[in-house]
Each structure stands twice: as C-alpha cells, then as structure tokens.
C-alpha cells in the first residue's frame, strides 16, 4: 500500500533522513518511534507531500506521489501541532474542510463522542490545547480513508479522551486500514501497535513486530527496550566522538608545534636582518 525507497531529506546542512526504505503492505497499526529529531515527522510530511524529499521515491497504491495531489484523498492526517486559522469557529472549520473535500464525512458522531457541542461556536484561537486536539482528531477521523496517519495523537488529552481515542483507532483498525502513528508514550505504543519502525539519526534502526523488538533486546517492556537501544547507540556515538576529538587534538597540537617552530625561524630571521640593517646604517654613518 505504501512503499518508500531510499528516502533522503536534508534541511540545509542538517541531514534528517539518510536513506529510508519502508513497506507497509498489510493493514494494522505501525508505530514510528525514535528520539527527538530522528526524522519521524519529516518522514510523515514527505508521505503527505508537505516536505519535498531530496532523493528517493514514495508510492501509494503503486503510484509515485511526487508532485501529485489526488492521492491525498486516500490519507487522513492528524498533524502534530493543531494549527488552525485562529479567527474561525469550530463549526466553520469543519464546514470548510468538508467543503474542500466533498466526500461523506461522519463528524456529528465524533463531535458527540468528544463532547464538543459547547465549543462549536467558539473561535479556535480561544480553545484550550486539549480541546484543540479533540477538534484536530475530529477533522482527521471524520473521513473514511484507507490510510490513517497520526502524528502525536495523544498530546494534551485527558484520560477520558485518551480512552475514546484508543477505541477510535481500534475501530479503524478493525476496518482493515493501514495506520501509522508516532508518539513518545511507550505505554500507548505497547497497547496499540502491531509493528514498530525505529528511526535513529535518519536511518531505520529496527523494523519489525513489537514482540520481535522486545525479544531482540531481551527486555520485558518497550520502554526499557528503547532505553537499551539508545544506550547502545550512544556508546557507539560517544566512542566515535572521542576518537574524533583525540584525532583532531593530535592534528591541532602538531599544527601548533610546526607553527611555533616556523615562527621561531621567522623571529630569528627578523633579528638577523635587523642586525644587518643596523650594521649597514652604522657603516653609512661612519662613512660620512
């Protein structure tokens, strides 16, 4: 259903994705995990065509999505930060989205589920973070598309809304959808996800089932597993940093020494030439 090959993206000098290959061909929930700045959101935004990759291809339903737009009708997207036009009311926003994407939308049920009726005529700029996120969820879940992309869906939700969200996601999974989600709450992943994609420094560190991941690192919970992965990778990183630092220090000190030697030579030369000059002037004055 979704195929990503050799995806590269850098923002200026910052290389965020360094060759990502992924395949989501069966329905189910895949959690894209990784530390902050590992490229999760960039990967999702590439899939949606919001970020344009430097290299590599993305296929949705076998079609390359580069510069395409119609395929986005297959995807429901929940953005990480609910950024809405501030001066619209909730009602107007939902009406506008429905107007822009004229397809059967089931927003009434979701509004009731999240108890958003009292907020329908309030401006989006005046809503609390949690309520905004609920509006965000309604806007993403009201369509019935085969692919669902959720970027940090749990931000700001209270426990009641959290349970409702989980049930909603399970419901969508039961319909046979392909669901991608990112989150930092490992408990949520353990409860929801079938498969895990672990991104580290722009590359895929692990891609497989949740059980397989825990087994590979021999840890009882996902949280510990992730901590273990990060610890191991950090050891590798710090070793690299140290060896680099040592090397550069050696280079620097060599450079300093050679410079010092050189400058000594220069000083000697200068002293010599000055003495010569002095001699010459002395000679001149005696000649006169």
């Amino acid at each position, binding site marked *: 259903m979704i195929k990503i090959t050799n995806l590269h993206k850098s*923002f200026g000098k910052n290389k965020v994705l360094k060759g990502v290959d992924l395949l989501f061909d069966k329905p189910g929930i895949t959690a894209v995990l990784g530390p902050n700045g590992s490229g999760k959101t960039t990967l999702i*935004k590439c899939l*949606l*065509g*919001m*970020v*344009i990759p430097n290299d590599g291809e993305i296929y949705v339903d076998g079609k390359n999505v580069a*510069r395409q*737009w*119609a*395929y*986005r*009708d297959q*995807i429901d*997207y929940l*953005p990480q930060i609910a*950024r*809405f*036009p*501030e*001066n619209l009311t909730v009602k107007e926003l939902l009406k*506008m*989205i429905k*107007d*822009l*994407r004229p397809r059967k939308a089931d927003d009434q049920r979701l509004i009731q589920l999240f108890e958003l009726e009292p907020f329908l005529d309030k401006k989006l700029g005046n809503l609390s973070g949690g309520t905004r996120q609920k509006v965000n969820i309604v806007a993403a879940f009201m369509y019935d598309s085969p692919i669902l992309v959720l970027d940090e869906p749990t931000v700001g939700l209270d426990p009641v809304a959290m349970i409702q969200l989980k049930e909603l996601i399970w419901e969508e999974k039961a319909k046979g959808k392909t669901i991608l989600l990112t989150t930092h709450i490992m408990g949520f992943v353990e409860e929801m996800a079938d498969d895990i994609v672990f991104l580290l420094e722009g590359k895929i560190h692990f891609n497989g089932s949740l059980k397989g991941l825990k087994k590979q690192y021999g840890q009882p919970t996902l949280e510990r597993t992730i901590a273990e992965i990060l610890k191991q990778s950090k050891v590798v990183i710090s070793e690299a940093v140290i060896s680099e630092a040592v090397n550069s220090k050696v280079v620097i000190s060599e450079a300093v020494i050679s410079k010092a030697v050189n400058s000594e030579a220069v000083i000697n030369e200068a002293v010599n030439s000055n003495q010569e000059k002095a001699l010459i002037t002395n000679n001149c004055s005696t000649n006169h």
Partner: protein
Amino acid sequence: MLKILKYSIFDLMRSRWTYIYCGFYLLLTMSFFWLSTDLSKTIISLMNVILVLIPLIATMFGVMYFYNSREFAELLLAQPIKRIHIFLGQYLGVAISLSLSLLIGVGAPFIFYGVFGSGEIWNYMVLLMVGVFLSFIFSAIAFYIALKNENRIRGFGLAILAWLFFAIIYDGLFLLALAGFSDYPLESFAMGASFFNPIDLSRILILLKLDVSALMGYTGAVFQKFLGSSIGISVAILSLFFWVLLPTFGIYRASVRKDF
C-alpha cells in the same frame, strides 16, 4: 482554487485592515475633491499618491496575509488539493480584495462628483486600472518574498526593500545614469529602463492618457516621441500584464519547492 479564493476573500472581509484601507482612500479622494473641483486636477493629484501608496500597502498586506494564514495553508496542504492552487487562491484573494477596496474608496467619490457624463471618464478609468495593476503586481511580489523566507522579520524587511527600490531607489539610479551619461544619446536606454519598473510604467501610462506634457518627464516624452500616445499606452499596458505574470510565475516556482 475557487474555493480557496472564496475563503481568502471571506477571511479578508472580516479583517478590519481591509476597511481601514478602503476608508483611507475614501478620505483621501474626498479631501482632494474638497481642495479642487476640477476632475482632471484631482486625477493627477490622486495619481501621485496612488503610485507610491498602492505598492506600499499591497506589499505590506501581501506579506502580512501570507504569514498570518500559514496555519490555513498547512491545513490545506494535507488535503487533496493542488499545491499551487492553495497559494494562487490566497494571492488572488489578497489582490482582489485590495483592488475592491481601491475601487470603492476612489470610485465612490468620483461617482458622487459626477464623473459619468464628463469628458474625464476614460482618464479616471485608466487611473483605476493602473491602481488594480499595481495591487496585483506588488501583492504578488510580496507573496513571492514571503514564500521564499521562513523568517518573518526578514520577509518584511525584504518586502519593504523591494517597495523602496521600485518607488524611490530606482528613480534615483535612473537620474544618476542620465546625469552621468548626458553626453550620449539616451532615448532608447531611458525607454528600456522604464520597462523594468512597474511604478514608472504606470506613471507614463496615466500621463500619456492625460496628455499632460508638462508632467511627463524625460521617459514619458521619449515614449510619446517614439511610440505616439496610443501605441505607447498599449505597450505600457502589455508590459504591466507581463509584470503581473512574472512574480506569479515566481510564486508557482517557490510553492512547488517549499517544505512545510
């Protein structure tokens, strides 16, 4: 794209800045009429103000609107909508509502003072047309600059610089060049140079239409001498069209490549 245009215009109709802008032109035109009842003189006085102010306001409005509607754009980007339609829709929304404010602000007093049935009707139409052209050109330049710059302060700075360049610096450089090379024949240079500045082109266009040789200046005179009034006017209008297309193409290129 029409839907996005519709929402942009709705959004701008709610903004008080649109009304302030419209009210300002209303006040300005009324006060010129109050100072003199001669339609032709009023048109010339208005021209001088409009040629500087429309580009400034269109530039500021364009940059401001783009940065303020980023959330809206991000929301739209995830929908099955062509990217270029989002930004073209927003740009046209700004340009059209600016033009409407101008038409109402400058138009209403003229109708009130009886422009219909007077001989000045066409001169007045040219004034409005130039105003609409300048609104479209400078809001497109502003959108292009804003699309290219993620940093708002930088975007605003560059937009003001662009306005300053076309409104003031360009003329200064032009005069310097004329003074520096006064020993050479400069007619074709002067004419060529005026094509590169939409504000100059607009000024020439209005003065050719009004046929006021005293105010025409060097380039205007050259235009009239080489092309005659009617061809001169057509060439100027054509170039203004080109000036709308150029930054619009820039918006297309920048929006296709941008990351959000």
